[in-house]
């Protein structure tokens, strides 16, 4: 059994900000059904560049859901600039830590955030086909990135 902190369990069992923001200013998606985990992040950003609201939809394990949820909490009230500096380690720290085998679940949060911010800047499509079953891109996280995330 994974050693989950109480905070992970809390954010998994009673996740904050689950669901869609229908009029989101930015959407970031990573992962796929085939990979076994996918995350869609929604942001509402005001004119001064402050994130007013954030929500998520996650298909994945308890760590993935808790990471997504805690990320949306972290994002609210931050400027886009501040948000761009959030890493998976911040997410894990906010959860009181993740088992090392589960660090990659927080990487997905960081990647979805990067995708959403790109989308906000108009650099990336808001949606892509997450249902792909054959090709598993695993949201572009390479082995090296995972190893780094685990080591750090």
């Amino acid at each position: 059994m994974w050693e989950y902190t109480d905070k992970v369990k809390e954010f998994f069992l009673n996740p904050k900000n689950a669901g869609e923001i229908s009029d989101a200013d930015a959407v970031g998606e990573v992962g796929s059904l085939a990979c076994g985990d996918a995350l869609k992040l929604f942001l509402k950003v005001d004119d001064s560049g402050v994130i007013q609201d954030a929500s998520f939809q996650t298909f994945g394990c308890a760590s993935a859901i808790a990471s997504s949820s805690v990320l949306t909490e972290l994002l609210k009230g931050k400027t886009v600039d501040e948000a761009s500096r959030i890493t998976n380690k911040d997410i894990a720290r906010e959860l009181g830590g993740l088992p090392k085998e589960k660090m990659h679940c927080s990487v997905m949060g960081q990647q979805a955030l990067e995708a959403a911010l790109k989308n906000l800047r108009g650099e990336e499509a808001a949606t892509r086909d997450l249902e792909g079953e054959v090709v598993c891109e695993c949201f572009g996280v390479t082995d090296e990135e995972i190893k780094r995330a685990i080591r750090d």
Partner: protein
Amino acid sequence: MKVTYLDNNATTRVAPEVMEEMLPFMDTLYGNPSSMHTFGGQVQKHLAQARERAAQALDCSPEEIIFTSGGTEGDNAAIFAAVNSQPDKRHLVTTRVEHPAVLNTCKYLEGRGYEVTYLPVDGYGRVNLDQLRESLRPDTALVSVMYANNETGNIYPVQAMAEMVKERGVLFHTDAVQVIGKLDLSMQKLPVDYLALSGHKIHAPKGVGAMFVRKKAPFRPFILGGHQENGRRAGTENTAGIVGLGRAMQLAAMDIAEENTRVAALRDRLEQGLTREVEQTRINGDRESRLPNTLNISFKYVEGEAILLMLDTLGVCASSGSACTSGNLEPSSVLRAMGVPFTHVHGSIRFSLSRYTTQEEVDLVLDHLPGIINKLRDMSPFGQGREPAASAPRY
């Protein structure tokens, strides 16, 4: 919180009858069965009785029983016995859905120059008998096919397989860890050379098991040292565990009728209830030939670990074949070998019942699991496509 234990293919509770017989061998009858004195000698008698009981449960002779430290050791010992006693034969046949105790031993042998044929399975997890026949070669040392699969509960036609393989003069091993107490086995009728079983799957303790080794089959000890187990398995005997295993095998043989009626009825109640209450499910395995206690069911668009953790908050114990591919966690290789779509592999849950399972326990799952699936699907980016089930409660 009351524990609802539906993970009996992982391990089982030690039966009270088994406990009772075992305990004296720790602190009163603690002698070494190899000792010359009466104090040790009497322990030897109880080991002999345990061996008789094991032999009776398998319908074989007591000399054909070797006690081990568990199912894994038995699988290792059988494979190495076959291979080491036939040094010129460098080929093995097994299936893609074996337990790691067999698969990883085969992989080790591949690293030592052996060739291994891993028979594929179809979408139901079935092995094709013709493919097995065609895989046999003059240099095949062993065919190893599990009697029933731990994840799906699939029962393999070991009788037919062993008959065919023995006709070709090839040794046959079966991992029977999951069938003891669930199927009636007779070594007089089943022409296998080796068979491995494990105590902790049949209400004996963890860390003890047994092998059947047919009198005519070649054998080489796997653990080397003293003369225990008639020179076939060295190491001071786990006396309490062996006595417990003997009793558990006796009990298990008595429970087969119950497994096939009461336990199967509970499993079917669970299966039918879940497929009725939750849309987009999939039963993994071969419903025509499956253990009476096992249900492996997939819920599309949700992830197994998440389901398990929600069940855990209710005290419900089950297991999952899921694990996303982006980590170094491997999703179930059994389900993947069956070609179960990834979407379903990730949302797979195994419930495995025992003679201690009650209808209340099954109903607890039926009451809550549909709502859990809904809750998780609501959070999922893929959850939208589905139709809500008529009566599933919302969380």
